[in-house]
């Protein structure tokens, strides 16, 4: 590379570098410093393991996110394959409806879960009419799960449909010609072909669920997910150090998930939400 090219390169890299430093590295560094600036220094980072409230929140969020990811992948894979392989009337409408939730912010999704499973919700009224008991799930972990599923499924379905479209039907026919029953075809041909898409969209699901705030906030559930804990520590308890350490931990977990996904699938997974 000669000098001239080198100069051009620097000029081209500059905007990225500025954005990266201003919006990513500086705040991160500040956050890390705040996290370690309390009386006990960096030991504060261990709080997340030792403080029961923080630790429980971490575990609950992790479990919820994993559960949401696995369920969303399963549900969306089945529906995505079905939608890709069958042509019927209303298919286009169904697909656009399934991807609808992408347009909603978390608060709205939380609100919709309340309309469904809240005290005055649809499920509670129906169950009251049928059995006499009101079933209310919106404010428990079930409500969170439903809400998270709602915005996770569309992301996966779209990825799966795109991957399924590229699947060569001759591969499945070849497997069957060699004697493979349907379940083996799924296991040996379809799932391997969908794997990159599953990993990428699974990682996005997981990351989104880990960081989702709006839905949890609206539902005001009795379990604290990590973003809620951060919010509480920051605004109510004015525990800025605690909020910072939790933020960093949350960030690292999410980032690691995305990183692993990216290196496994080779595609560019992007978190949103």
């Amino acid at each position: 590379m000669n000098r001239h090219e080198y100069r051009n390169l620097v000029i081209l890299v500059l905007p990225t570098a500025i954005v990266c430093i201003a919006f990513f590295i500086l705040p991160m560094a500040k956050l890390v410093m705040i996290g370690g600036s309390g009386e006990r220094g960096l030991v504060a980072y261990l709080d997340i393991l030792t403080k029961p409230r923080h630790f429980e929140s971490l575990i609950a969020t992790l479990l919820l996110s994993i559960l949401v990811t696995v369920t969303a992948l399963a549900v969306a894979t089945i529906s995505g394959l079905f939608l890709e392989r069958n042509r019927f009337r209303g298919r286009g409408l169904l697909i656009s409806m399934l991807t609808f939730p992408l347009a909603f912010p978390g608060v709205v999704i939380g609100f919709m879960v309340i309309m469904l499973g809240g005290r005055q919700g649809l499920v509670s009224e129906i169950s009251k009419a049928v059995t006499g008991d009101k079933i209310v799930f919106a404010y428990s972990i079930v409500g969170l799960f439903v809400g998270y599923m709602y915005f996770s499924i569309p992301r996966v379905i779209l990825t799966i449909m795109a991957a399924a479209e590229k699947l060569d039907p001759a591969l499945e026919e070849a497997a069957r010609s060699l004697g493979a029953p349907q379940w083996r075809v799924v296991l040996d041909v379809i799932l391997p072909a969908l794997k990159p898409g599953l990993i990428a969209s699974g990682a996005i699901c997981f990351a989104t669920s880990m960081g989702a705030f709006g839905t949890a906030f609206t539902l005001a559930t009795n379990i604290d997910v990590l973003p809620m804990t951060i919010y509480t520590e920051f605004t109510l308890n004015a525990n800025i150090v605690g909020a910072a350490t939790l933020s960093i931990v949350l960030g690292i977990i999410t980032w690691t998930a995305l990183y692993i996904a990216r290196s496994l699938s080779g595609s560019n997974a992007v978190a949103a939400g």
Partner: protein
Amino acid sequence: MSGSRDHGTAIKLLSCAKTFGGGTVRALESLDLEITGGETVVLLGPSGCGKTTTLRIVAGLEEPDPGGRVFFGDDDVTRLPIEKRNIGMVFQSYALFPNMNVRENIAYGLKVRKMPKVEIDRRVGEMVEMMHMGELEFRRIDQLSGGQRQRVALARAIVVRPRVLLLDEPLTALDAILRTRLRVEIDELLRRLGITAVYVTHDQGEAMSLGDRIVVMSNGKVEQIGTPRDIYYKPNSEFVAEFIGSINRLHGIACGDHVEVAGGTVPWLLNQSSGKVEILFRPENVGICDVSVAQLKGKVVTSFFQGDRTRLIVGGLGERDIVIETTDRTEYISGQDIGFQVDPDSIIVLEK
């Protein structure tokens, strides 16, 4: 052509028709076909004539329209799905599993059959050796050339010792040289295995060299079924004659022991009719002779020197030019008069 004719499974198709798209696309008219055990039958025809559809009916990937039946030996397999038919299938696109290496691809059918591991190893080893793929065994599929992929696809299909082997244009995606080489390999393989095979192609050279019998199809219908020699020497329709090799056509009137055409006469000793006929003959069955004594005369339009022979386009014999092939070393120039005669044994006369 082959000795071991007895251990293959016979295939019988009875009134197999196929309609797609809710009755709108008639891909295959009612077809009856019997294939004896160990025989190689080639389905030949232009694009869209129903070759793949026929093959897929044999495979069990498509069900024939109601009324059609498929037999393997004495078993009625019409309702049996492909995975239960014990067939081997080779696809034009190879359809090798990209998530498995060469060895795993070949072993797949055996694994599905829950064969003991030692037996799988033995059979796959045999196959790898037979197909000369020793150094490729652990390669990923995307690291193979087209010809190598096709060999793996073949190996994967035959390692399970299927009852019948079905090949859908297995060589079409390869270049000409490789195609010829693999054609020889496939031919040897089919002879050695003595397996019943159905081979789809639109390449007449492939059909002639591989097939014990050829089924020529067009527009979902069978035009002719016969040995390569039958099809070549005794085509029963213009379509077959034109499709197999190149052929010349002359319109004429039959009278007595000859047919009168635009450029002269053609002897037809077996003539029993009088009236309009069409004479077909192959470019290589023409002898060039002195213009003064020739039965047929024309003018050279163009000549193509091809080394081993010269290809002449000759006009002045009706609306269509004819093609003559000659191995003599004379140089012909455009516009020159030429006299020739057609080998009387090789002409095909279609009465109009």
